Protein backbone atom coordinates (compact mmCIF):
# COMPACT_ATOMS: atom_id res chain seq x y z
CA UNK A 1 0.00 0.00 0.00
CA UNK A 2 2.89 2.36 0.61
CA UNK A 3 3.47 2.89 -3.02
CA UNK A 4 0.04 4.36 -3.36
CA UNK A 5 0.40 6.73 -0.43
CA UNK A 6 0.19 10.40 -1.34
CA UNK A 7 3.81 11.04 -0.42
CA UNK A 8 4.91 8.59 -3.08
CA UNK A 9 2.62 9.29 -5.94
CA UNK A 10 2.90 6.82 -8.73
CA UNK A 11 4.61 8.50 -11.61
CA UNK A 12 2.20 8.33 -14.43
CA UNK A 13 2.68 10.00 -17.74
CA UNK A 14 -0.21 12.39 -18.18
CA UNK A 15 -2.50 10.89 -20.70
CA UNK A 16 -2.93 13.12 -23.65
CA UNK A 17 -6.55 13.90 -24.17
CA UNK A 18 -7.59 13.10 -27.67
CA UNK A 19 -8.88 16.55 -28.37
CA UNK A 20 -5.45 18.08 -27.83
CA UNK A 21 -4.40 17.14 -31.34
CA UNK A 22 -6.42 18.78 -34.04
CA UNK A 23 -8.84 16.47 -35.73
CA UNK A 24 -8.51 14.00 -32.95
CA UNK A 25 -11.78 12.40 -32.27
CA UNK A 26 -10.66 8.85 -31.72
CA UNK A 27 -11.09 6.71 -34.77
CA UNK A 28 -12.44 3.23 -34.43
CA UNK A 29 -9.79 0.62 -33.56
CA UNK A 30 -9.64 -0.99 -37.02
CA UNK A 31 -9.22 2.45 -38.56
CA UNK A 32 -6.37 3.29 -36.21
CA UNK A 33 -4.77 -0.08 -36.82
CA UNK A 34 -4.92 0.46 -40.57
CA UNK A 35 -3.20 3.81 -40.23
CA UNK A 36 -0.48 2.47 -37.98
CA UNK A 37 0.08 -0.36 -40.41
CA UNK A 38 0.39 2.09 -43.30
CA UNK A 39 3.00 4.10 -41.42
CA UNK A 40 4.87 0.98 -40.42
CA UNK A 41 5.04 -0.15 -44.04
CA UNK A 42 6.34 3.26 -45.09
CA UNK A 43 9.05 3.22 -42.44
CA UNK A 44 10.14 -0.30 -43.39
CA UNK A 45 10.23 0.59 -47.09
CA UNK A 46 12.52 3.51 -46.33
CA UNK A 47 14.83 1.72 -43.91
CA UNK A 48 15.10 -1.70 -45.52
CA UNK A 49 17.35 -0.65 -48.44
CA UNK A 50 19.73 1.06 -46.04
CA UNK A 51 19.93 -2.03 -43.88
CA UNK A 52 20.61 -4.28 -46.86
CA UNK A 53 23.29 -2.00 -48.25
CA UNK A 54 25.04 -1.55 -44.92
CA UNK A 55 24.93 -5.28 -44.19
CA UNK A 56 26.24 -6.20 -47.62
CA UNK A 57 29.12 -3.76 -47.34
CA UNK A 58 30.11 -5.27 -44.00
CA UNK A 59 29.42 -8.94 -44.67
CA UNK A 60 32.13 -11.54 -45.16
CA UNK A 61 32.84 -12.38 -48.84
CA UNK A 62 31.78 -16.02 -48.31
CA UNK A 63 28.37 -14.98 -47.10
CA UNK A 64 27.92 -12.52 -49.97
CA UNK A 65 28.90 -15.10 -52.54
CA UNK A 66 26.66 -17.72 -50.97
CA UNK A 67 23.70 -15.35 -51.04
CA UNK A 68 24.46 -14.43 -54.63
CA UNK A 69 24.55 -10.73 -53.88
CA UNK A 70 22.81 -8.99 -51.05
CA UNK A 71 22.49 -9.99 -47.44
CA UNK A 72 20.14 -8.54 -44.87
CA UNK A 73 22.32 -9.22 -41.86
CA UNK A 74 26.07 -9.92 -41.77
CA UNK A 75 27.21 -13.06 -39.92
CA UNK A 76 30.75 -11.78 -39.57
CA UNK A 77 31.57 -8.13 -39.87
CA UNK A 78 34.56 -7.25 -42.01
CA UNK A 79 35.80 -3.87 -43.15
CA UNK A 80 37.67 -5.32 -46.12
CA UNK A 81 35.51 -3.52 -48.69
CA UNK A 82 36.08 -0.14 -47.07
CA UNK A 83 39.77 -0.81 -46.65
CA UNK A 84 40.08 -1.69 -50.31
CA UNK A 85 38.25 1.46 -51.39
CA UNK A 86 39.83 3.93 -49.03
CA UNK A 87 43.50 2.95 -49.25
CA UNK A 88 44.27 5.15 -52.24
CA UNK A 89 42.75 4.92 -55.69
CA UNK A 90 39.70 6.37 -57.38
CA UNK A 91 37.23 6.26 -54.52
CA UNK A 92 39.57 7.79 -51.95
CA UNK A 93 40.29 10.63 -54.35
CA UNK A 94 36.61 11.13 -55.09
CA UNK A 95 35.84 11.35 -51.38
CA UNK A 96 38.48 14.06 -51.02
CA UNK A 97 37.13 15.96 -54.03
CA UNK A 98 33.59 15.77 -52.71
CA UNK A 99 34.56 16.90 -49.24
CA UNK A 100 36.68 19.73 -50.62
CA UNK A 101 34.02 20.99 -53.01
CA UNK A 102 31.38 20.74 -50.29
CA UNK A 103 33.41 22.64 -47.70
CA UNK A 104 34.66 25.40 -49.99
CA UNK A 105 31.34 25.68 -51.81
CA UNK A 106 29.32 25.88 -48.62
CA UNK A 107 31.61 28.55 -47.22
CA UNK A 108 31.37 30.69 -50.34
CA UNK A 109 27.63 30.14 -50.73
CA UNK A 110 26.97 31.04 -47.15
CA UNK A 111 29.13 34.16 -47.26
CA UNK A 112 27.55 35.35 -50.46
CA UNK A 113 23.99 34.52 -49.37
CA UNK A 114 24.29 36.12 -45.94
CA UNK A 115 25.72 39.25 -47.50
CA UNK A 116 22.98 39.37 -50.13
CA UNK A 117 20.23 38.64 -47.61
CA UNK A 118 21.50 41.34 -45.27
CA UNK A 119 21.76 43.82 -48.11
CA UNK A 120 18.14 43.10 -48.95
CA UNK A 121 16.88 43.11 -45.38
CA UNK A 122 15.74 46.75 -45.27
CA UNK A 123 13.20 47.67 -47.93
CA UNK A 124 13.92 51.05 -49.43
CA UNK A 125 17.69 50.84 -49.41
CA UNK A 126 19.64 51.57 -52.55
CA UNK A 127 19.08 48.91 -55.20
CA UNK A 128 16.73 46.93 -52.99
CA UNK A 129 13.90 46.52 -55.45
CA UNK A 130 15.76 45.66 -58.66
CA UNK A 131 18.14 43.27 -56.92
CA UNK A 132 15.31 41.50 -55.11
CA UNK A 133 13.52 41.18 -58.45
CA UNK A 134 16.70 39.88 -60.05
CA UNK A 135 16.99 37.25 -57.34
CA UNK A 136 13.37 36.15 -57.51
CA UNK A 137 13.45 35.88 -61.29
CA UNK A 138 16.04 33.12 -60.99
CA UNK A 139 13.35 31.00 -59.34
CA UNK A 140 11.19 31.40 -62.43
CA UNK A 141 13.69 30.36 -65.07
CA UNK A 142 17.15 28.86 -65.30
CA UNK A 143 19.61 29.53 -68.09
CA UNK A 144 19.27 26.00 -69.40
CA UNK A 145 21.76 23.23 -69.96
CA UNK A 146 23.37 24.40 -73.19
CA UNK A 147 23.78 28.11 -72.39
CA UNK A 148 25.16 27.12 -68.99
CA UNK A 149 27.68 24.81 -70.61
CA UNK A 150 28.74 27.48 -73.12
CA UNK A 151 29.31 29.94 -70.29
CA UNK A 152 31.53 27.55 -68.35
CA UNK A 153 33.42 26.79 -71.54
CA UNK A 154 33.92 30.48 -72.33
CA UNK A 155 35.28 31.01 -68.81
CA UNK A 156 37.68 28.06 -69.32
CA UNK A 157 36.32 26.31 -66.25
CA UNK A 158 35.87 22.89 -67.86
CA UNK A 159 37.66 20.34 -65.68
CA UNK A 160 38.03 22.92 -62.94
CA UNK A 161 36.53 22.37 -59.50
CA UNK A 162 35.12 25.89 -59.70
CA UNK A 163 32.63 24.65 -62.28
CA UNK A 164 31.08 22.57 -59.49
CA UNK A 165 30.71 25.57 -57.20
CA UNK A 166 30.09 28.82 -59.04
CA UNK A 167 26.93 28.01 -61.05
CA UNK A 168 25.04 26.83 -57.95
CA UNK A 169 26.54 29.28 -55.51
CA UNK A 170 23.40 31.32 -54.85
CA UNK A 171 20.08 29.65 -54.21
CA UNK A 172 17.35 32.27 -54.30
CA UNK A 173 15.13 30.30 -51.94
CA UNK A 174 17.85 30.09 -49.30
CA UNK A 175 18.55 33.81 -49.59
CA UNK A 176 14.86 34.61 -49.12
CA UNK A 177 14.75 32.44 -46.00
CA UNK A 178 17.83 34.15 -44.54
CA UNK A 179 16.46 37.55 -45.43
CA UNK A 180 13.21 36.93 -43.64
CA UNK A 181 15.12 35.88 -40.51
CA UNK A 182 17.20 39.05 -40.68
CA UNK A 183 14.09 41.16 -41.16
CA UNK A 184 12.56 39.76 -37.99
CA UNK A 185 15.41 41.03 -35.85
CA UNK A 186 14.09 43.97 -33.81
CA UNK A 187 14.90 47.22 -35.51
CA UNK A 188 15.79 48.85 -32.17
CA UNK A 189 18.87 46.66 -31.74
CA UNK A 190 20.25 47.71 -35.08
CA UNK A 191 19.45 51.37 -34.47
CA UNK A 192 21.09 51.31 -31.06
CA UNK A 193 24.25 49.85 -32.53
CA UNK A 194 24.26 52.48 -35.23
CA UNK A 195 23.97 55.28 -32.69
CA UNK A 196 27.00 53.80 -31.00
CA UNK A 197 28.80 54.28 -34.29
CA UNK A 198 28.85 50.71 -35.57
CA UNK A 199 29.33 50.24 -39.30
CA UNK A 200 26.97 48.01 -41.28
CA UNK A 201 29.59 45.27 -41.33
CA UNK A 202 29.98 45.24 -37.57
CA UNK A 203 26.19 45.36 -37.15
CA UNK A 204 26.00 42.26 -39.33
CA UNK A 205 28.81 40.44 -37.55
CA UNK A 206 28.09 41.49 -33.96
CA UNK A 207 24.31 41.69 -33.86
CA UNK A 208 22.50 40.15 -36.78
CA UNK A 209 24.58 37.00 -37.22
CA UNK A 210 24.76 36.03 -33.53
CA UNK A 211 20.99 36.43 -33.31
CA UNK A 212 20.35 34.17 -36.26
CA UNK A 213 23.07 31.60 -35.71
CA UNK A 214 20.72 28.63 -35.88
CA UNK A 215 19.06 29.61 -39.15
CA UNK A 216 22.36 30.46 -40.79
CA UNK A 217 23.65 27.06 -39.74
CA UNK A 218 20.65 25.31 -41.26
CA UNK A 219 21.00 27.18 -44.53
CA UNK A 220 24.65 26.18 -44.50
CA UNK A 221 23.66 22.55 -44.10
CA UNK A 222 21.20 22.84 -46.97
CA UNK A 223 23.96 24.19 -49.18
CA UNK A 224 26.30 21.44 -48.01
CA UNK A 225 23.76 18.76 -48.91
CA UNK A 226 23.32 20.30 -52.36
CA UNK A 227 27.05 20.37 -53.02
CA UNK A 228 27.57 16.85 -51.78
CA UNK A 229 24.72 15.54 -53.91
CA UNK A 230 25.54 17.48 -57.07
CA UNK A 231 25.94 15.12 -59.96
CA UNK A 232 24.89 16.75 -63.21
CA UNK A 233 27.38 19.61 -63.16
CA UNK A 234 30.17 17.10 -62.67
CA UNK A 235 28.86 15.05 -65.59
CA UNK A 236 28.83 18.16 -67.77
CA UNK A 237 32.00 19.88 -66.75
CA UNK A 238 34.44 17.29 -65.39
CA UNK A 239 35.78 14.92 -68.04
CA UNK A 240 38.84 13.86 -66.12
CA UNK A 241 38.03 10.81 -63.99
CA UNK A 242 40.78 11.75 -61.55
CA UNK A 243 38.75 14.84 -60.63
CA UNK A 244 35.39 13.10 -60.23
CA UNK A 245 33.38 13.70 -57.09
CA UNK A 246 31.73 10.81 -55.25
CA UNK A 247 28.42 11.02 -57.13
CA UNK A 248 30.14 10.44 -60.48
CA UNK A 249 31.96 7.41 -59.07
CA UNK A 250 28.67 6.12 -57.76
CA UNK A 251 27.05 6.60 -61.14
CA UNK A 252 29.84 4.87 -63.04
CA UNK A 253 30.50 1.90 -60.79
CA UNK A 254 27.12 1.30 -59.23
CA UNK A 255 24.40 2.66 -61.52
CA UNK A 256 26.18 1.77 -64.75
CA UNK A 257 27.76 -1.25 -63.15
CA UNK A 258 31.24 -0.80 -64.59
CA UNK A 259 33.64 -3.34 -63.16
CA UNK A 260 35.88 -2.11 -60.39
CA UNK A 261 39.36 -3.21 -61.40
CA UNK A 262 42.75 -3.10 -59.77
CA UNK A 263 43.07 0.51 -60.87
CA UNK A 264 40.18 1.55 -58.67
CA UNK A 265 40.68 -0.53 -55.56
CA UNK A 266 43.78 -1.35 -53.60
CA UNK A 267 43.38 -4.73 -52.03
CA UNK A 268 45.89 -5.36 -49.28
CA UNK A 269 48.86 -7.38 -50.43
CA UNK A 270 47.83 -10.96 -51.00
CA UNK A 271 44.20 -10.40 -50.03
CA UNK A 272 41.63 -10.94 -52.75
CA UNK A 273 39.53 -8.05 -53.98
CA UNK A 274 36.19 -8.11 -52.12
CA UNK A 275 33.15 -9.21 -54.13
CA UNK A 276 31.53 -6.60 -56.37
CA UNK A 277 28.25 -6.31 -54.42
CA UNK A 278 30.20 -5.50 -51.25
CA UNK A 279 32.28 -2.88 -53.02
CA UNK A 280 29.24 -1.31 -54.62
CA UNK A 281 27.39 -1.30 -51.33
CA UNK A 282 30.39 0.26 -49.62
CA UNK A 283 30.57 3.03 -52.23
CA UNK A 284 26.88 3.67 -51.65
CA UNK A 285 27.35 3.81 -47.89
CA UNK A 286 30.29 6.19 -48.25
CA UNK A 287 28.21 8.57 -50.33
CA UNK A 288 25.30 8.48 -47.90
CA UNK A 289 27.20 8.67 -44.60
CA UNK A 290 27.88 12.44 -44.61
CA UNK A 291 24.18 13.11 -45.18
CA UNK A 292 23.20 10.81 -42.34
CA UNK A 293 25.80 12.43 -40.07
CA UNK A 294 24.46 15.95 -40.49
CA UNK A 295 20.84 14.83 -40.63
CA UNK A 296 20.18 15.17 -36.87
CA UNK A 297 21.27 18.81 -37.01
CA UNK A 298 19.21 19.37 -40.11
CA UNK A 299 16.00 17.89 -38.88
CA UNK A 300 16.08 19.81 -35.63
CA UNK A 301 15.57 23.05 -37.50
CA UNK A 302 14.33 22.23 -40.94
CA UNK A 303 10.66 22.58 -40.20
CA UNK A 304 11.20 26.19 -39.29
CA UNK A 305 13.28 26.99 -42.34
CA UNK A 306 10.92 25.39 -44.79
CA UNK A 307 7.90 27.07 -43.30
CA UNK A 308 9.39 30.54 -43.37
CA UNK A 309 10.43 30.17 -46.95
CA UNK A 310 7.52 28.33 -48.39
CA UNK A 311 4.38 29.54 -46.72
CA UNK A 312 3.70 33.16 -47.22
CA UNK A 313 2.01 35.24 -44.59
Amino acid at each position, binding site marked *: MTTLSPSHPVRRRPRRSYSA*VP*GETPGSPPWRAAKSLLLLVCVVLVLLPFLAILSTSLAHPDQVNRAGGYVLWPDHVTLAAYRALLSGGLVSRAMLVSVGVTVVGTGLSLGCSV*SLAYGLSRPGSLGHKPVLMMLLMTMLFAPGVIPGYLMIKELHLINSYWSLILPTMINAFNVIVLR*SFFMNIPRELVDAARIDGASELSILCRIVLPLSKASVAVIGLFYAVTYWNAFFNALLYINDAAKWPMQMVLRTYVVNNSALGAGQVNAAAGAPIPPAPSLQAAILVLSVVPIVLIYPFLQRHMNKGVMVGAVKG
Partner: protein
Amino acid sequence: MTTLDQPAARPEARGAPPEKGRRLPRPRRRRDRALFWFLLPGIAVLLLFQYVPLLGNVIAFQDYQPFIGIMHSRWSGLDNFSVLFDGDQQFLHALVNTLELTLIQVVFVFPAPILLALALNSLVSERIKKWVQNVLYLPHFLSWVVVVSLFQQMLGNDGLLNLFLRAHEMGSWNIIGNPDLFKALLTSQVIWKDTGWGTILFLAALSRVDNDLYEAAAADGASRLRQTWHVTLPALRGLVVLLLILRLGDALSVGFEQILLQQNGVGLDSSQVLDTYVYNNGLVGGQWGVSAAVGLVKGVVGVVLVLGANKVAHLFGEEGVYRS
Protein backbone atom coordinates in the same frame (compact mmCIF):
# COMPACT_ATOMS: atom_id res chain seq x y z
CA MET B 1 6.05 39.61 -56.01
CA THR B 2 5.10 41.51 -52.94
CA THR B 3 3.67 38.56 -51.06
CA LEU B 4 7.15 37.13 -50.72
CA ASP B 5 8.05 40.01 -48.45
CA GLN B 6 7.68 38.82 -44.93
CA PRO B 7 4.78 40.28 -43.02
CA ALA B 8 7.12 41.50 -40.33
CA ALA B 9 8.61 43.85 -42.83
CA ARG B 10 5.40 45.50 -43.79
CA PRO B 11 4.56 47.40 -40.62
CA GLU B 12 8.02 48.80 -40.88
CA ALA B 13 7.55 50.00 -44.39
CA ARG B 14 4.24 51.43 -43.29
CA GLY B 15 5.85 53.00 -40.24
CA ALA B 16 7.61 55.41 -42.54
CA PRO B 17 5.60 58.54 -43.18
CA PRO B 18 3.21 57.71 -45.99
CA GLU B 19 4.56 59.96 -48.68
CA LYS B 20 3.65 59.65 -52.28
CA GLY B 21 4.36 56.16 -53.58
CA ARG B 22 6.73 54.01 -51.56
CA ARG B 23 9.55 56.54 -51.29
CA LEU B 24 11.16 56.52 -47.92
CA PRO B 25 12.33 59.71 -46.29
CA ARG B 26 15.67 60.86 -47.49
CA PRO B 27 17.73 60.31 -44.32
CA ARG B 28 16.87 56.66 -44.26
CA ARG B 29 17.74 56.17 -47.89
CA ARG B 30 21.10 57.75 -47.29
CA ARG B 31 21.62 55.85 -44.06
CA ASP B 32 20.91 52.48 -45.65
CA ARG B 33 23.05 53.21 -48.66
CA ALA B 34 25.97 51.30 -47.19
CA LEU B 35 23.87 48.17 -47.54
CA PHE B 36 24.44 48.32 -51.27
CA TRP B 37 28.00 47.07 -50.86
CA PHE B 38 26.62 43.87 -49.38
CA LEU B 39 24.70 43.22 -52.57
CA LEU B 40 27.70 43.37 -54.86
CA PRO B 41 29.07 39.80 -54.59
CA GLY B 42 25.58 38.41 -55.02
CA ILE B 43 24.88 40.63 -58.01
CA ALA B 44 28.13 39.55 -59.61
CA VAL B 45 27.39 35.84 -59.20
CA LEU B 46 23.78 36.18 -60.34
CA LEU B 47 24.76 38.17 -63.41
CA LEU B 48 27.59 35.89 -64.40
CA PHE B 49 25.87 32.54 -63.91
CA GLN B 50 22.16 33.28 -64.24
CA TYR B 51 21.78 36.22 -66.60
CA VAL B 52 24.80 36.36 -68.91
CA PRO B 53 24.34 32.68 -69.88
CA LEU B 54 20.89 33.62 -71.17
CA LEU B 55 22.71 35.34 -74.00
CA GLY B 56 24.00 31.92 -75.02
CA ASN B 57 20.48 31.21 -76.23
CA VAL B 58 21.32 33.11 -79.42
CA ILE B 59 22.78 29.89 -80.76
CA ALA B 60 19.19 28.76 -81.13
CA PHE B 61 19.17 31.07 -84.15
CA GLN B 62 22.55 29.92 -85.41
CA ASP B 63 24.14 27.01 -87.14
CA TYR B 64 26.47 26.85 -84.14
CA GLN B 65 29.84 25.15 -84.49
CA PRO B 66 31.79 24.86 -81.24
CA PHE B 67 35.13 25.28 -82.96
CA ILE B 68 34.17 28.56 -84.62
CA GLY B 69 32.34 29.99 -81.62
CA ILE B 70 29.24 32.12 -81.24
CA MET B 71 30.80 35.14 -82.91
CA HIS B 72 31.53 33.49 -86.22
CA SER B 73 28.84 30.85 -86.56
CA ARG B 74 26.39 31.31 -89.42
CA TRP B 75 22.97 32.75 -88.61
CA SER B 76 20.17 30.48 -89.63
CA GLY B 77 17.04 32.35 -88.64
CA LEU B 78 14.30 30.11 -87.34
CA ASP B 79 15.56 26.92 -89.04
CA ASN B 80 16.39 25.28 -85.72
CA PHE B 81 12.84 25.70 -84.52
CA SER B 82 11.36 23.67 -87.36
CA VAL B 83 12.01 20.50 -85.35
CA LEU B 84 9.17 21.58 -83.11
CA PHE B 85 6.62 21.46 -85.92
CA ASP B 86 7.77 19.07 -88.63
CA GLY B 87 6.82 15.91 -86.77
CA ASP B 88 10.34 14.88 -85.83
CA GLN B 89 9.92 11.45 -84.21
CA GLN B 90 12.51 11.93 -81.52
CA PHE B 91 11.14 15.25 -80.45
CA LEU B 92 7.57 13.94 -80.40
CA HIS B 93 8.63 11.00 -78.24
CA ALA B 94 10.26 13.39 -75.83
CA LEU B 95 7.23 15.66 -75.69
CA VAL B 96 4.72 12.84 -75.26
CA ASN B 97 6.80 11.11 -72.60
CA THR B 98 7.20 14.36 -70.70
CA LEU B 99 3.48 15.12 -70.67
CA GLU B 100 2.59 11.53 -69.79
CA LEU B 101 4.98 11.57 -66.87
CA THR B 102 3.64 14.89 -65.63
CA LEU B 103 0.11 13.56 -65.78
CA ILE B 104 1.02 10.31 -64.01
CA GLN B 105 2.90 12.17 -61.34
CA VAL B 106 0.17 14.69 -60.69
CA VAL B 107 -2.28 11.81 -60.24
CA PHE B 108 -0.09 9.49 -58.15
CA VAL B 109 2.70 11.54 -56.61
CA PHE B 110 0.81 14.66 -55.71
CA PRO B 111 -1.84 13.17 -53.36
CA ALA B 112 0.64 10.87 -51.61
CA PRO B 113 1.93 13.39 -49.06
CA ILE B 114 -1.63 14.51 -48.31
CA LEU B 115 -2.63 10.95 -47.43
CA LEU B 116 0.51 10.45 -45.40
CA ALA B 117 -0.02 13.74 -43.59
CA LEU B 118 -3.58 12.74 -42.73
CA ALA B 119 -2.35 9.42 -41.35
CA LEU B 120 0.40 11.12 -39.36
CA ASN B 121 -1.76 13.96 -38.14
CA SER B 122 -4.11 11.82 -36.13
CA LEU B 123 -1.45 9.60 -34.62
CA VAL B 124 -2.02 9.42 -30.90
CA SER B 125 1.56 9.51 -29.70
CA GLU B 126 3.56 12.63 -30.49
CA ARG B 127 6.81 10.80 -29.93
CA ILE B 128 6.08 8.08 -32.46
CA LYS B 129 4.93 10.74 -34.87
CA LYS B 130 8.22 12.65 -34.56
CA TRP B 131 10.20 9.47 -35.02
CA VAL B 132 8.26 8.38 -38.09
CA GLN B 133 8.63 11.85 -39.57
CA ASN B 134 12.37 11.85 -39.08
CA VAL B 135 12.71 8.53 -40.86
CA LEU B 136 10.45 9.51 -43.74
CA TYR B 137 12.15 12.88 -44.33
CA LEU B 138 15.57 11.30 -44.81
CA PRO B 139 15.29 10.16 -48.46
CA HIS B 140 14.66 13.73 -49.54
CA PHE B 141 18.26 14.58 -48.74
CA LEU B 142 19.76 11.79 -50.82
CA SER B 143 20.95 12.50 -54.33
CA TRP B 144 19.22 10.96 -57.32
CA VAL B 145 22.32 8.91 -57.97
CA VAL B 146 21.95 7.34 -54.55
CA VAL B 147 18.22 6.76 -54.94
CA VAL B 148 18.62 5.16 -58.35
CA SER B 149 21.46 3.01 -57.02
CA LEU B 150 19.36 1.87 -54.09
CA PHE B 151 16.46 0.96 -56.37
CA GLN B 152 18.76 -1.01 -58.65
CA GLN B 153 20.27 -2.87 -55.73
CA MET B 154 16.85 -3.71 -54.38
CA LEU B 155 14.84 -4.37 -57.55
CA GLY B 156 17.50 -5.16 -60.15
CA ASN B 157 18.00 -8.53 -61.79
CA ASP B 158 20.47 -9.58 -59.12
CA GLY B 159 18.90 -7.37 -56.53
CA LEU B 160 17.45 -8.23 -53.19
CA LEU B 161 13.89 -8.79 -54.41
CA ASN B 162 14.86 -11.16 -57.21
CA LEU B 163 17.28 -13.04 -55.00
CA PHE B 164 14.42 -13.58 -52.62
CA LEU B 165 12.02 -14.63 -55.38
CA ARG B 166 14.52 -17.07 -56.85
CA ALA B 167 15.38 -18.51 -53.47
CA HIS B 168 11.70 -19.28 -52.99
CA GLU B 169 11.30 -20.53 -56.56
CA MET B 170 8.94 -17.85 -57.67
CA GLY B 171 10.85 -16.97 -60.81
CA SER B 172 12.17 -13.48 -61.25
CA TRP B 173 10.71 -10.15 -62.09
CA ASN B 174 12.40 -7.89 -64.60
CA ILE B 175 11.75 -4.37 -63.28
CA ILE B 176 14.88 -2.37 -63.94
CA GLY B 177 15.55 -2.04 -67.65
CA ASN B 178 12.01 -2.93 -68.65
CA PRO B 179 10.64 -0.19 -70.96
CA ASP B 180 7.03 -1.07 -70.10
CA LEU B 181 7.59 -0.50 -66.41
CA PHE B 182 9.87 2.48 -66.75
CA LYS B 183 7.32 5.16 -65.98
CA ALA B 184 6.00 3.21 -63.00
CA LEU B 185 9.56 2.83 -61.76
CA LEU B 186 10.23 6.55 -62.07
CA THR B 187 7.00 7.36 -60.28
CA SER B 188 7.70 4.98 -57.43
CA GLN B 189 11.16 6.49 -57.02
CA VAL B 190 9.72 9.98 -56.75
CA ILE B 191 7.18 8.74 -54.22
CA TRP B 192 9.89 7.00 -52.19
CA LYS B 193 12.14 10.04 -52.17
CA ASP B 194 9.82 12.96 -51.59
CA THR B 195 6.52 11.87 -50.07
CA GLY B 196 7.76 12.17 -46.51
CA TRP B 197 9.26 15.57 -47.12
CA GLY B 198 6.09 16.70 -48.85
CA THR B 199 4.09 16.18 -45.67
CA ILE B 200 5.83 19.07 -43.87
CA LEU B 201 3.71 21.75 -45.46
CA PHE B 202 0.49 19.79 -45.10
CA LEU B 203 1.15 18.94 -41.46
CA ALA B 204 1.78 22.60 -40.74
CA ALA B 205 -1.47 23.55 -42.42
CA LEU B 206 -3.31 20.83 -40.49
CA SER B 207 -1.91 22.00 -37.15
CA ARG B 208 -3.48 25.39 -37.76
CA VAL B 209 -7.00 24.03 -38.16
CA ASP B 210 -9.25 25.36 -35.44
CA ASN B 211 -10.15 22.53 -33.12
CA ASP B 212 -13.62 23.96 -32.51
CA LEU B 213 -14.50 23.08 -36.07
CA TYR B 214 -13.97 19.39 -35.35
CA GLU B 215 -15.89 19.58 -32.13
CA ALA B 216 -18.74 21.36 -33.85
CA ALA B 217 -18.74 18.81 -36.63
CA ALA B 218 -18.67 15.95 -34.14
CA ALA B 219 -21.52 17.56 -32.21
CA ASP B 220 -23.50 17.66 -35.44
CA GLY B 221 -22.92 13.94 -35.71
CA ALA B 222 -20.29 13.99 -38.43
CA SER B 223 -18.39 10.74 -38.70
CA ARG B 224 -14.62 10.72 -38.92
CA LEU B 225 -14.63 10.51 -42.67
CA ARG B 226 -17.10 13.37 -42.88
CA GLN B 227 -14.92 15.44 -40.56
CA THR B 228 -12.00 14.83 -42.87
CA TRP B 229 -14.07 15.73 -45.88
CA HIS B 230 -15.75 18.85 -44.49
CA VAL B 231 -13.11 20.27 -42.15
CA THR B 232 -9.66 18.91 -42.87
CA LEU B 233 -9.58 18.93 -46.64
CA PRO B 234 -11.07 22.42 -47.04
CA ALA B 235 -8.34 23.66 -44.70
CA LEU B 236 -5.76 22.32 -47.13
CA ARG B 237 -7.34 23.79 -50.25
CA GLY B 238 -5.22 26.93 -50.55
CA LEU B 239 -2.00 24.98 -50.10
CA VAL B 240 -3.07 22.35 -52.61
CA VAL B 241 -3.81 25.01 -55.20
CA LEU B 242 -0.47 26.67 -54.55
CA LEU B 243 1.47 23.43 -54.93
CA LEU B 244 -0.49 22.41 -58.01
CA ILE B 245 0.41 25.72 -59.61
CA LEU B 246 4.05 25.19 -58.88
CA ARG B 247 3.85 21.66 -60.26
CA LEU B 248 2.07 22.88 -63.38
CA GLY B 249 4.73 25.50 -63.94
CA ASP B 250 7.17 22.60 -63.96
CA ALA B 251 5.01 20.51 -66.28
CA LEU B 252 7.75 20.29 -68.90
CA SER B 253 10.51 19.26 -66.48
CA VAL B 254 10.25 15.76 -65.14
CA GLY B 255 13.13 14.32 -63.17
CA PHE B 256 16.02 15.17 -65.46
CA GLU B 257 18.86 13.62 -63.44
CA GLN B 258 16.70 10.71 -62.43
CA ILE B 259 15.87 9.79 -66.02
CA LEU B 260 19.31 10.53 -67.43
CA LEU B 261 20.79 8.03 -64.99
CA GLN B 262 18.50 5.22 -66.11
CA GLN B 263 18.26 5.74 -69.85
CA ASN B 264 20.96 3.27 -70.77
CA GLY B 265 18.95 0.23 -69.86
CA VAL B 266 15.55 1.02 -71.33
CA GLY B 267 16.22 2.77 -74.60
CA LEU B 268 15.27 6.26 -75.69
CA ASP B 269 11.76 5.57 -76.99
CA SER B 270 10.26 5.16 -73.58
CA SER B 271 12.68 7.30 -71.60
CA GLN B 272 13.42 10.41 -73.63
CA VAL B 273 11.94 13.57 -72.13
CA LEU B 274 12.48 17.17 -73.20
CA ASP B 275 15.38 17.81 -70.84
CA THR B 276 17.23 14.66 -71.82
CA TYR B 277 16.49 15.42 -75.47
CA VAL B 278 18.31 18.75 -75.12
CA TYR B 279 21.22 17.07 -73.36
CA ASN B 280 21.51 14.02 -75.59
CA ASN B 281 21.13 15.82 -78.89
CA GLY B 282 23.05 18.95 -78.01
CA LEU B 283 25.94 18.16 -75.73
CA VAL B 284 26.31 14.52 -76.69
CA GLY B 285 25.05 14.51 -80.26
CA GLY B 286 26.42 17.86 -81.37
CA GLN B 287 23.15 19.34 -82.66
CA TRP B 288 23.73 22.48 -80.65
CA GLY B 289 21.38 24.85 -82.42
CA VAL B 290 18.35 22.56 -82.47
CA SER B 291 18.76 21.58 -78.83
CA ALA B 292 19.19 25.16 -77.72
CA ALA B 293 16.01 26.02 -79.64
CA VAL B 294 14.06 23.27 -77.88
CA GLY B 295 15.51 24.33 -74.52
CA LEU B 296 14.61 27.95 -75.16
CA VAL B 297 11.02 27.21 -76.14
CA LYS B 298 10.69 24.93 -73.13
CA GLY B 299 11.91 27.64 -70.80
CA VAL B 300 9.59 30.28 -72.23
CA VAL B 301 6.57 27.95 -72.13
CA GLY B 302 7.46 27.10 -68.52
CA VAL B 303 7.37 30.77 -67.50
CA VAL B 304 4.08 31.26 -69.33
CA LEU B 305 2.65 28.21 -67.54
CA VAL B 306 3.55 29.53 -64.09
CA LEU B 307 2.16 32.98 -64.81
CA GLY B 308 -0.97 31.50 -66.38
CA ALA B 309 -1.59 29.08 -63.53
CA ASN B 310 -1.18 31.90 -61.07
CA LYS B 311 -3.76 33.92 -62.97
CA VAL B 312 -6.18 31.00 -62.93
CA ALA B 313 -5.69 30.66 -59.17
CA HIS B 314 -6.66 34.29 -58.74
CA LEU B 315 -9.77 33.75 -60.82
CA PHE B 316 -10.78 30.98 -58.43
CA GLY B 317 -10.25 33.32 -55.50
CA GLU B 318 -7.09 31.63 -54.23
CA GLU B 319 -3.96 33.48 -53.39
CA GLY B 320 -1.58 31.72 -55.74
CA VAL B 321 2.17 32.15 -55.64
CA TYR B 322 2.30 35.92 -55.78
CA ARG B 323 0.11 38.89 -56.43
CA SER B 324 1.37 41.96 -58.14
